[in-house]
């Protein structure tokens, strides 16, 4: 039974893709203050697990609970408390860096003028009026991640957040994750890099590549 401070818990999840069982009867729990790294080789089902936790995919069996209620019963409340950034950045090339960020901030109820200051946090000052189609993959990801600096939502689910981000950027993100966890948030992420975060703070869920 999950303890009372569990934000999110997964109950006996089974995921099947292309007739292959990715994971079976997986139960895990995410509490306030947790930084959880989902580890495993390519094709082990890391992204599938994150998508199920975010409510984007349905598991073959099992259920995800948010505040001890099944996810499908309180989707709107869950989405108010969730930030998910997938491995696609969700950045429109036709809009400028600032417009892209301002849109996502506005959808969270934050004022659009916060965008300019937030771009400074991800080292994109000077690019705010550049169309995103003129920026690099790493800069796209920075725009997508920039909203985390303004984010008041407790649950962060991040799929490969460090892809295409430079060393200094990774360091800044790691500091942000620790800060967020200290304030009672919860970060769930996948990455192939070793986290330079104090090992006591990080929990790891290891997914294995299951041979049929």
């Amino acid at each position: 039974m999950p303890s009372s401070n569990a934000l999110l818990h997964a109950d006996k999840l089974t995921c099947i893709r292309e007739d292959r069982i990715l994971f079976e009867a997986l139960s895990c729990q995410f509490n306030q203050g947790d930084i959880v790294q989902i580890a495993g080789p390519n094709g082990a089902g890391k992204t599938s697990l994150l998508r199920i936790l975010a409510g984007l995919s349905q598991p073959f069996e099992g259920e995800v609970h948010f505040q001890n209620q099944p996810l499908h019963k309180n989707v709107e409340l869950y989405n108010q408390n969730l930030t998910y950034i997938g491995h696609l950045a969700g950045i429109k090339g036709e809009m400028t860096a600032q417009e892209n960020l301002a849109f996502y901030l506005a959808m969270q109820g934050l004022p659009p003028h916060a965008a300019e200051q937030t771009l400074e946090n991800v080292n994109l000052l000077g690019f705010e009026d550049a169309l995103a189609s003129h920026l690099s993959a790493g800069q796209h990801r920075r725009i997508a991640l920039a909203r985390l600096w303004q984010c008041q939502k407790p649950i962060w689910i991040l799929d490969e957040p460090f892809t295409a981000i430079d060393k200094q950027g990774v360091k800044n993100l790691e500091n942000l994750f620790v800060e967020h966890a200290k304030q009672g948030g919860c970060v769930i992420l996948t990455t192939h890099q070793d986290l330079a975060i104090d090992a006591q703070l990080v929990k790891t869920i290891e997914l294995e590549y299951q041979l049929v």
Partner: protein
Amino acid sequence: MMSINIPSYRQAFMLMLKRDLTIALRHKDDIFNPLLFFIIVVTLFPLGIGPEASTLSRIAPGIIWVAALLATLLSLDRLFKADFADGSLEQMMLIPQPLFIIVLAKIIAHWLITGLPLIFIAPVLAVLLHLNENSYGALMITLLIGTPVLSFIGAIGVALTVGIKKGGVLLSLIVLPLYIPVLIFATSAIDTAAMNLPYSGQVAIIGALFFTSFTLAPFAVSAALKVSTN
């Protein structure tokens, strides 16, 4: 739990509408492709059939409506494909507001970009086809309430096929049969108007189609998107 000041349904709708219109205005292909297709198809008919006024005015309603229908079909792909490909669609599905509000905003933006320009250009092209002068009112009314129906029904088809790599053929097969009632009643209304008879019956049916698709399509699209992105 933390209470967050989330935007109201109306604010979310306006944000989405503004975003889609901004993107379309910067990506001018979205506007000009269907419009140019519409103009080219309609102008080719007098060239192919010959300039005889009586033949042209007989087939004018059908040509204009079929061209409008195909122009809409051509533009449908843009509705969700680009957002699906760059990950924006995932983000939209996780917005705290119900998905149908976002979907409604996107469909209305699509109509403003592709349907509305057709309505402005249609009377000019009708002159080229010697459309009966009594029929102009009917042409405008049927286009005004008929083209949104095309966008709403088309959105369901796109939402169902968005996850498929080459869904173009499938999309036509799903959507075109559903467009036929609009085509039949719209051309019938224009023909009836040419004979100086009341055409309110046909318009009422298109109106019913409009309100049905306006109220129900966003829910169908939301459900289809959830399946497609699963």
